[in-house]
């Protein structure tokens, strides 16, 4: 293998030539309709960050209503709700959290992990020049646009966007007369999700093929970085789970448009009007939806877990503890993830016997997560931790995921779920795993790979300020929600203070809202830092973090075709502090040194 020549054809200089004389056609093919996985990855990154701010602002609307119900929204009130005197109407509140969650999940976390980081990193980290099917890859990005347009349009159609919750439970979502306000909006929501699904399908099959077939010589499956493992297993999850959601979405679409009644039982009189011919079953949607959406929550965390593993090992300057157990536990989470969906339906009226079954599998899924947590902790044990911003975000992932995961155990316990289901306990859980977990991992990933993406470093000082504020405000926002949940405070209520039982919780909600506004404001630092660094940040070399994995041997940013030499891999990605070499890192491509085979662990 070592005989393969390191052909130094300078793709580096090549990439720069591109920049100079740029015709419109060339601009379009390079930056817009590009087949290059890196460009596509960045397209995903910027699109999703914009959606992130949209989703976040919607959340602030939710928070406003909960802290100061039925009062005039400052600034935006007059703009958007002039008809109600600047205050949020109950219809609009329903729409706010529905679109908040739909956007955050389907337009931010999933596409940023799989689309942005997956696209950018997979070929680079396995030593491929591009994805296996570049055209398909491009289409997977451009199929997001019809979805984007559906979502944007849905805000402007009469009655506003979808208001049936991000779970879109029928009959509320499929009978027009049940939610007269979101007539077209809900249909657009369904269509948007179908497009996202098609896009993800294209991506996932492409990723699988690429990872299976296009690894550099020597890059065995058990030498792949955890990021790649996370992406790989995620792609498998997508491939098996998404078609089911797509089928369900088509059915809801038909229920809404041509008048079938897949999810509408017979004899419904909704809002005075008979609904459909009947014969359907509302619970069926929940089964199909969660058959996708439970695996989807792991789709949203596994790549982040992979990225966090890489960051932790890199900045702990120590091999990842228990590489193989880490892989097996990801696989275990994925496998078990398919048989636990019923835990969202404990109270749904499904057979209580089934509830017991799902309870057991759900509880057991904590096991692989536990293994991961312990291995991360063991990785930073006896390490030499470098406190970069990326590392701080990665560590905060561990810290916050533990909280989010442990709250999952409460809900997995069926009797306890009787009380906390659909309370803010769930909302706390959601945000600890999705923001504290996935989004923190994503922030870390941005700080970590930004140099590779753009060839410039991000500002570390402001990065740390961003981290500090986000961490504080995050906990300030979402930790008290556990208490709200324990008090039974129901979610999705425009005005919970309607009930005497919950009136004393208003001050706590006000505290939460203040923190939420702070958290939103902190993200401006990230945006500013990104934009500033993009233009003015200090240039960096190929390997600013002294990391091992393959992407750091390519130029920053990598040119077309990624590598200017044939990468050959001799070892796993986590050989930090190896006694064999003087440096504290030992890149995967460095030729073997004497005695290495004796020390080899894998």
């Amino acid at each position, binding site marked *: 293998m070592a005989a*393969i020549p390191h*052909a130094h*054809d300078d*793709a580096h200089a*090549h990439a720069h030539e591109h920049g100079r004389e740029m015709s419109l056609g060339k601009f379009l*093919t390079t930056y817009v309709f590009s*087949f290059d996985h890196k460009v596509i990855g960045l397209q995903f990154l910027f699109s999703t960050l914009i959606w992130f701010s949209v989703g976040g602002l919607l959340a602030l609307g939710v928070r406003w209503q909960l802290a100061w119900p039925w009062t005039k929204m400052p600034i935006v009130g007059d703009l958007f709700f002039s008809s109600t005197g600047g205050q949020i109407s109950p219809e609009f509140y329903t729409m706010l959290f529905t679109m908040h969650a739909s956007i955050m999940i389907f337009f931010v976390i999933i596409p940023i992990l799989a689309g942005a980081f997956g696209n950018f990193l997979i070929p680079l980290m396995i*030593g*491929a*020049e*591009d994805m*296996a*099917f*570049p055209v398909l890859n491009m289409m997977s990005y451009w199929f997001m646009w019809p979805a984007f347009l559906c979502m944007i349009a849905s805000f402007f159609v009469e009655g506003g966007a979808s208001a049936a919750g991000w779970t879109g439970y029928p009959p509320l979502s499929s009978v027009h007369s049940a939610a007269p306000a979101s007539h077209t909006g809900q249909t657009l929501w369904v269509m948007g999700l179908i497009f996202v699904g098609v896009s993800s*399908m294209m991506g996932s*099959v*492409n990723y*699988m*093929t690429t990872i*299976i*077939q*296009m*690894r*550099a*010589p*020597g890059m065995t*499956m058990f030498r792949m970085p955890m990021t790649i493992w996370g992406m790989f297993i995620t792609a498998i999850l997508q*491939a*098996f*789970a*998404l*078609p*089911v959601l*797509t*089928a*369900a979405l088509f*059915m809801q679409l*038909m229920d809404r448009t*041509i*008048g*079938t*009644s*897949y999810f509408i039982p*017979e004899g419904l009189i909704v809002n005075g009007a*008979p609904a*459909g*011919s*009947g*014969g*359907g*079953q509302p619970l*069926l949607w929940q089964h*199909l939806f969660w058959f996708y959406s439970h695996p989807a929550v792991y789709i949203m965390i596994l790549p982040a877990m992979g990225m966090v593993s890489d960051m932790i090992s890199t900045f702990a300057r120590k091999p990842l503890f228990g590489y193989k157990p880490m892989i097996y536990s990801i696989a275990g989470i994925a496998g078990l993830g398919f048989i636990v969906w019923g835990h969202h339906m404990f109270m749904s009226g499904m057979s209580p016997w089934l509830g017991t079954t799902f309870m057991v599998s759900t509880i057991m899924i904590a096991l692989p997560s536990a293994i991961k947590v312990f291995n991360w902790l063991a990785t930073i044990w006896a390490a030499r931790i470098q406190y970069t911003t990326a590392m701080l975000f990665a560590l905060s992932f561990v810290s916050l995921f533990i909280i989010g995961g442990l709250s999952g155990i409460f809900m997995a316990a069926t009797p306890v779920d009787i009380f906390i289901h659909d309370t803010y306990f769930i909302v706390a859980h959601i945000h600890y795993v999705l923001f504290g977990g996935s989004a923190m991992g994503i922030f870390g990933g941005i700080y970590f790979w930004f140099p590779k993406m753009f060839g410039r470093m991000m500002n570390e000082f402001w990065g740390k300020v961003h981290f500090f504020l986000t961490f504080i405000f995050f906990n300030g926002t979402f930790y008290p929600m556990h208490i709200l949940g324990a008090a039974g405070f129901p979610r999705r209520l425009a005005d919970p203070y309607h009930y005497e039982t919950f009136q004393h919780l208003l001050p706590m909600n006000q505290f939460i809202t203040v923190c939420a506004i702070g958290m939103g404001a902190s993200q401006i630092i990230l945006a500013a830092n990104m934009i500033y660094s993009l233009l003015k940040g200090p240039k960096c070399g190929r390997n600013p973090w002294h990391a091992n994995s393959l992407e750091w041997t390519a130029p920053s940013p990598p*040119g*077309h*075709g990624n*590598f200017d*030499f*044939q*990468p050959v891999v001799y070892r796993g990605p986590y050989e930090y502090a190896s006694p064999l070499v003087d440096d504290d890192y030992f890149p995967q491509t460095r030729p073997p040194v004497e005695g290495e085979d004796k020390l080899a662990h894998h």
Partner: protein
Amino acid sequence: MTDPHGHGQIKLQYQPALPIPNGKLFLWLFLSTEIMFFAALIGVYIVIRFGAPDWPGPSKMHLVELIGAANTLVLILSSVTVVLALDAAQKDNASLARLWIAATFLLGGLFLGIKVFEYKSKFSHGIYPALPHSRMYEKPDVYFASAVRERLRVLYARIDADRAEIASKKTNLLAGPQTEDVQRQIKDLDDRDKVLADKKAEYEQAVGPVAGDANASAHALMELSKRIYPVHDEHEKNAEGEAEHESIGLNDKYPELKLPFVVTGGNMWATTYFTMTGFHALHVLAGLVAFVLLLFKRLDRTRAGIVENVGLYWHFVDLVWIFLFPLLYLF
């Protein structure tokens, strides 16, 4: 930009895990996702069907098992021809390969043709996937009765309008000079008028007074629904053989009536039937497009991979039908 290697970079070497081309791997992975898609559709069908209090048998829905069986055979044949095309392509026999692909295309087209025919026959009986078009009602209730009334009103109104037109023509003729020709015309009009009047009387007689009565009893409505669309009793059928109960409903006797009718569970039957066969038909259609594209190419050994991939897809389409046929036609 179309050639990823065209920029003078080195061509990287890889270490594939599976000894198959990327295209084929892609196809198998794609088929996995397709399996899940159809599994969801079939799962939904199973839950809805077996969870339904009542479900019409295939014959009740004008579904002819023999046609379905014939279609199965067509698809099986087309699978064989595709395999033979691949064989020919691998043996570098391009013209034979093309011939087999053409044959496959024709068989696929035949399958779709038969499907269209089947759909048409459903539509002509008023069976549609969903409400606005469908004339099917779940139970003989007030909604059904008022739909029948409405349909009769439309029918009668049309007859009345025709008769009114005849009458006015007649008055016109009577006003003019009474030539022999005119006399004949008037007689003609009288005859037509009588035919219409008889028809209306016949309808009224056949449908009965129940339809006109807004407060008809549940039992009377049941009788009406039976008259429009007799319910076959499946157990009876077995005991007495087939021909005994070919009792003909009003809709069959007077096809122009197109009265709403009652089939309990019929709408969900139609929904699932049309969805499953519809998505399957879309897949067939996609396959046909692929075959057309193949027909424009020289199918020699270098293209055997493509033929193989399209063939794999086509076999999958066949596989789905292998399960749909018994589930929809024979269960």
